[in-house]
């Protein structure tokens, strides 16, 4: 994560979108984007693949549903059958609410855990961002500096007419929340 990179900072959402579009089409590799709020259309401009998180959600939900259906059948019909109002031992209508709740629970926890694991987000982790202002009113684009061809001049050239605030080298510095800079 500490490989050299360039940080291009913008003041407006549309400049960011335009800049990302130009850089990507000029062949630069974009590592990440820091924005104060979700920007519509950014995933398309960055060419991100659709998130695989929905598959995690689906699989976890299916495990919750089938696991709980099996468990209810085992407890109510196999291990210790109890006559409830003369209903059959294995009654799907009675099992459905708990199975549904367990589907929702596992799908929810599974998705959030997978997201945190993939992003390596855990309690107490120091935030890593080019400037604290990306949480307020700045939009930063991190360009991978894979070779000497990628430098401030070549990025500025590729950006052309786009309104840019600054282009800086970034060593991937870590900021604590109270960092005044």
């Amino acid at each position, binding site marked *: 994560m500490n490989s050299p990179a360039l940080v291009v900072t913008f003041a407006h959402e549309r400049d960011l979108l335009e800049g990302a579009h130009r850089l990507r089409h000029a062949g630069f590799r974009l590592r990440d984007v820091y924005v104060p709020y979700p920007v519509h259309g950014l995933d398309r401009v960055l060419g991100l693949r659709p998130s695989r998180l929905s598959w995690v959600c689906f699989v976890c939900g299916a495990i919750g549903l089938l696991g709980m259906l099996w468990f209810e059948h085992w407890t109510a019909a196999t291990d210790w059958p109890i006559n409830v109002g*003369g209903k059959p031992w294995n009654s799907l*209508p009675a099992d459905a609410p708990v199975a549904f709740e367990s589907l929702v629970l596992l799908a929810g926890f599974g998705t959030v855990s997978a997201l945190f694991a993939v992003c390596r987000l855990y309690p107490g982790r120091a935030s890593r961002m080019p400037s604290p202002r990306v949480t307020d009113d700045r939009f930063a684009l991190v360009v991978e500096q894979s070779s000497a061809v990628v430098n401030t001049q070549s990025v500025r050239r590729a950006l052309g007419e786009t309104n840019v605030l600054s282009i800086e080298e970034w060593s991937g510095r870590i900021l604590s929340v109270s960092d005044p800079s």
Partner: protein
Amino acid sequence: MRPESPLFGDPMTRSPLPKLVACLAAGGLVVGFAVEPQRAWAALYCAALFALSTSLFGAVFVALANICGGTWHVAFRRVPEAMSSGIAPFGVVVVALLAWRTLAGGTAWHPPDEPGTLWFKAWWLQPTFMVARSVGYVAVWMIGATWLRSVSLAEDVRESRRSISHVQRGSAVFAALFAVTFSLAAADWLMALEPTWYSTVWGIYWFSGLMTGGLATLILLALSLRDAGPLRQAFTDEHLHDLGKLLFGFCCFWMYIWYCQYMLIWYAHLPEETMYFVPRLTGAWSVVFIVNVGLNWGLPFLLLLPRTSKRNPTLLRRVAVVVLVGRAVDLYLAAYPEVVGPYLIVGALELAAAFLIAFVAWSLWSRSFSSAPAVPAGSPLLRESLEYHA
């Protein structure tokens, strides 16, 4: 001179075939009323209720969007508005059929000496009172829909434009009145077919059906209008995506309410409640019972689950057709066992009623749509709707 219909501009209005088939269907229904009055009545009643709730959806959709301060729907708002033009005609048909059965048909809705009768039901289901309040429901919906349409048309011209909060307040009043009248209508028009049975979730159940059927129709109409031209620039894939999400959500809502009703009745096992489900779970009806759940929830749920399928016009069209067939099956399952008898029957009469009502709905909506600009070009909210990103 009648304006050209943009919707069915080509085959449906110019070629005489659909009109011919509709006339044949009407003739067939007249014969049906003479030969098998109960079945012909049920066929036409189900079809008219379907069309009425779909028309009513148009007004409800616009009102809900107004209340939420929604702007995304403005580009295709004329479509639900056009749908709401069917409220008055189909309301008249439903109330006329209701009156024919209760007042003139000789079939009492509620024989007073029936065991288990509640005094309130006997009073509430008096034929004259029932028909009178049914007229009231339709009148409320019609006034609401007309008002919603008029403020929408007024938005195009700066001078006549009403403030957003004015429209919001009016829509909220309509939504509140709709909630009460629609619940009562569902109970009067469908639950009272079996007068001694009751279910307190019935109104919400039919509201969820109104939403799925209406959304499916809206998707089909908007896509046809996009292909035909009037909404080519206006109705984007983003709008389609959101309508797909709503259809997906309301299909799940329908299932939820269906299950809430079924599970509680199954669990409590009270004879006065299970009497609705017993005939529907025996014999050939049990197949329809399962198919109903599959069409209204199973298939739409599985097909609309991935993001890409909600942005795919071909797939969404097919799902919409599945949902519409599901709605028809749902109404059929609610009305036929009580009105026609404990046997399954689908034939020429049902198809005739469905085609006739669908043809009338299509012509009414199409005419209403072409009577105003296809896109509310003067609306200050249009730009936001066109640039909307789902």
